[in-house]
C-alpha cells in the first residue's frame, strides 16, 4: 500500500476525528468473503498488526480453504499450501529463514480434520511459528460441511439434522490441548462475532506476532469466526450462534500467556548411552 493511498483515505473532513477506518487493503480490494463471514474481521486484525509490528522479514503460509483469500490482502511474501499442510509448510519455511516472522493461516477443517498430527508435531517441536486458526466449524469452501470443530447440533449440508456426536464425534479443542505443551509459548482463543471481541482478538494476535517474532516458541491463536453461509443463517443469526459457541465449547481467553523476553527452553539431555554407562546398578522391581 502506498503512502498516497493512505493519505487519501485519512483526509481530515472539517476537523472531525476518525473513530473507524477501513484497513487499506480492503479499500483497494473488496473483501473476498461472504456477507457476515468472520474472516474479514480476522484479516483486518492481522493486517493492522503486521503494519503495527513492521517485521523486517515475514512469510505467510496459507492453507487451501476459505481463509486462503487472505493471501491477496497480506503485505508479505506468502506460499499456498495444500489442504491441511500449512503448519508443516510454515515449519519448513522457518527452518530456512529462522530470522523471519512465519505465520500459518489455516481453517479448522485444515487443522483438525486434515492436518491434526502436523500441528501437534509443530507444537511439540517448539517451532517458533505463529499459527492462526479460523474456526467456524464448517468447510466453507466446499459449501459448508461440518468439521471436527463443529459443536454438536450444528446443522450443515452434511449434517442436515444437526451434527450428531454419536455418529460424527465431538469437537477437538486444539487450543486447550496445545496450551498444555511445554513448548508452546502463547496460546489464546478469541472471537470475531462482536466488535469488542474482535478488539480482544486483535490484541491476542498482536501478542502472538510479537512472541513469534521473538522466536519464543510455538504460538497459536484460535479465532472463532462466523459462517452464515455454511450455517444456513442470516448474519444476525450467525452472531447469535457464535455467542452460543463461545459460551459452550470455545470460551475466549488466553490459555497460555507470554511476556516479552520469555522463551521456551528446550530441555538439555543426556544420551541413552551415557545414561546407561552412568548407572551403577540396574534398578530392580520393588514388587
Amino acid at each position, binding site marked *: 500500500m502506498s503512502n498516497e493511498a493512505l493519505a487519501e483515505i485519512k483526509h481530515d473532513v472539517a476537523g472531525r476525528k476518525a473513530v473507524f477506518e477501513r484497513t487499506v487493503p480492503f479499500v483497494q480490494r473488496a473483501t473476498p468473503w461472504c456477507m457476515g463471514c468472520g474472516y474479514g474481521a480476522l484479516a483486518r486484525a492481522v493486517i493492522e498488526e503486521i503494519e503495527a509490528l*513492521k517485521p*523486517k522479514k515475514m*512469510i505467510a503460509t496459507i492453507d487451501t480453504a476459505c481463509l486462503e483469500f487472505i493471501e491477496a490482502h497480506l503485505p508479505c511474501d506468502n*506460499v499456498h499450501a495444500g489442504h491441511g499442510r500449512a503448519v508443516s509448510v510454515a515449519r519448513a519455511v522457518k527452518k*530456512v529463514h529462522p530470522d523471519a516472522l512465519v505465520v500459518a493461516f489455516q481453517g479448522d477443517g485444515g487443522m483438525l480434520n486434515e492436518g491434526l498430527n502436523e500441528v501437534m508435531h509443530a507444537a511439540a517441536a517448539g517451532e517458533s511459528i505463529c499459527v492462526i486458526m479460523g474456526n467456524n466449524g464448517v468447510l466453507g469452501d466446499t459449501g459448508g460441511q461440518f468439521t471436527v470443530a463443529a459443536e454438536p447440533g450444528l446443522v450443515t449440508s452434511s449434517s442436515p439434522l444437526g451434527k450428531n456426536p454419536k455418529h460424527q464425534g465431538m469437537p477437538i479443542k486444539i487450543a486447550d490441548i496445545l496450551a498444555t505443551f511445554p513448548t508452546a509459548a502463547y496460546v489464546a482463543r478469541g472471537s470475531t462475532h462482536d466488535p469488542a471481541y474482535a478488539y480482544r482478538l486483535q490484541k491476542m494476535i498482536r501478542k502472538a506476532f510479537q512472541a513469534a517474532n521473538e522466536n519464543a516458541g510455538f504460538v497459536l491463536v484460535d479465532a472463532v469466526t462466523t459462517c452464515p453461509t455454511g450455517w444456513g443463517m442470516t448474519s444476525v443469526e450467525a452472531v447469535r450462534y457464535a455467542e452460543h459457541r463461545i459460551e459452550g465449547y470455545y470460551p475466549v481467553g488466553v490459555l497460555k500467556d507470554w511476556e516479552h523476553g520469555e522463551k521456551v527452553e528446550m530441555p538439555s539431555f543426556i544420551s541413552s548411552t551415557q545414561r546407561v554407562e552412568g548407572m551403577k546398578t540396574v534398578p530392580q522391581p520393588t514388587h
Partner: protein
Amino acid sequence: MPEKLFMRATHALTEAALRSGCKFYLGYPITPITEAGEYWSEHAEEHGASPFMVESELEAGAMLLGTSASGARTMFGGNGASMSLIAESLSTMAGMELPMVLADFPRGDGGAGSLTMGQGDYFQVTKAIAQGDFHLVTLSPHTVQECVDLTFDAFWLADKFRVPVVIMGDWILGMSMEAVAFPDRDPFEGLEPKTWALDGDMSRPKRHVTGGSTGGMVTSVNVGDVGKETGDKRAPVGPGERSVRWRYDKYSRIPRRWDALFCDDAEVVVASWGSLARIVKTVVYKLRREGLKVGHFRPITLYPYPYEALGEATKKAREVLVLECNTGMMLEDVKLGLNGRLPVEFYGRPGGVCPTMAEIEYEIRQAYQKKKVAA
C-alpha cells in the same frame, strides 16, 4: 584422481546430496532407503545442512514445498509407498514449479511391498504419480557410482528447470556396496539466483508462490496467448493452460540420456533399466564374445524417455527384447518409441522376482534364434 570410497548406494547418494549443497533430507525410515536418513543425521551438520528428521511422509511433502519455496535445496527419500504418500504434494509442487530431488528406491510389488527386487513402480513414477497434467523427471542409475553422479545432475536439473527430479533406484541397488569417487564439481555451476524464492524481505514487493492454475504463479515466463489470433475459434488460453504448456515445454528441453551397448550392428537389441540392466549387460557381453550380434539399450532418463535414441540404437535390429521385473511397463515406452517399426518381445518377472542370468540368457538366445529362422 579423486579418492575412492567403498560405500552403500544410499550412503553414497546422501553424501552426494550433501556435497551438492542440499540442506534438508525429508524422508521417513523405510527399507531399502532407511540408511540414507541415518547417514544424513550423522553427517548433515558437517556440511552446514539441517539434521532435522521429518515426523511423517505427509509432513515431508509439505516440508519439501516449504523448504523449496524458501529457496533451499531439499530432498526426499523413500520407496514406492512413500512416493504415494507425498503424491498430492508433488502435484502441487509441480504446478508451483518448485525444484527438489526425490530418491525413490522401490521394493517388489505394491502395498507394503516385498523385501525383494521389483520394477512395478515404473508407471507410478514416470507416468502418473498424482492428479494433474505433469510428470516427474526421472533418472535411473544402475551402479553406486551412477547414483552419485546422477544426484549431482538431479539437483542441477531441478534448479535449472524448476522441476521435481526423481532418482529411481531399486532394491538391489539400495542394498549394494561399491567403490565410488565423488566428482569435484561446482553443484551450482551456471545457475541463476532464485529470485522467485521467498525470503520474507518486507522492503520489496511481496512474492507469492502458488500453482499455475490458481493464478498469479511465480514464473518469469509467458508462452504467449495462443488463442488471441483473430478469427481463432479456440477457447482463450487462461493461466492454467499457460502454466501446463510451459511445464511441458520445459520437459521437452530436458536432455535425454541413455546408455547404448553394442547397438551399432545389433540384430537383437535388449532393453532394460535399473539394476536388472546390469545383469542383462553381463549376459550381453557373454553372448557378444560368442559372436551373437546382441546389443543393449538402457534409458537413464526414464522421463523424458529417450525415444529418438532408442530409434537410433535399433537401426540395424530386427527385433527388440524388453526385460523387466514387472508385467511390461517400460515395454510401453519402447513400443511408443518404435511405433510399430520392429517386433517387440517381452519377458518380465513381476511380484518381487528378479530373473537369473541363465534365464535372461535363455530369453535372449530364443529371441536371437527366432530372428535367424525368420531371416
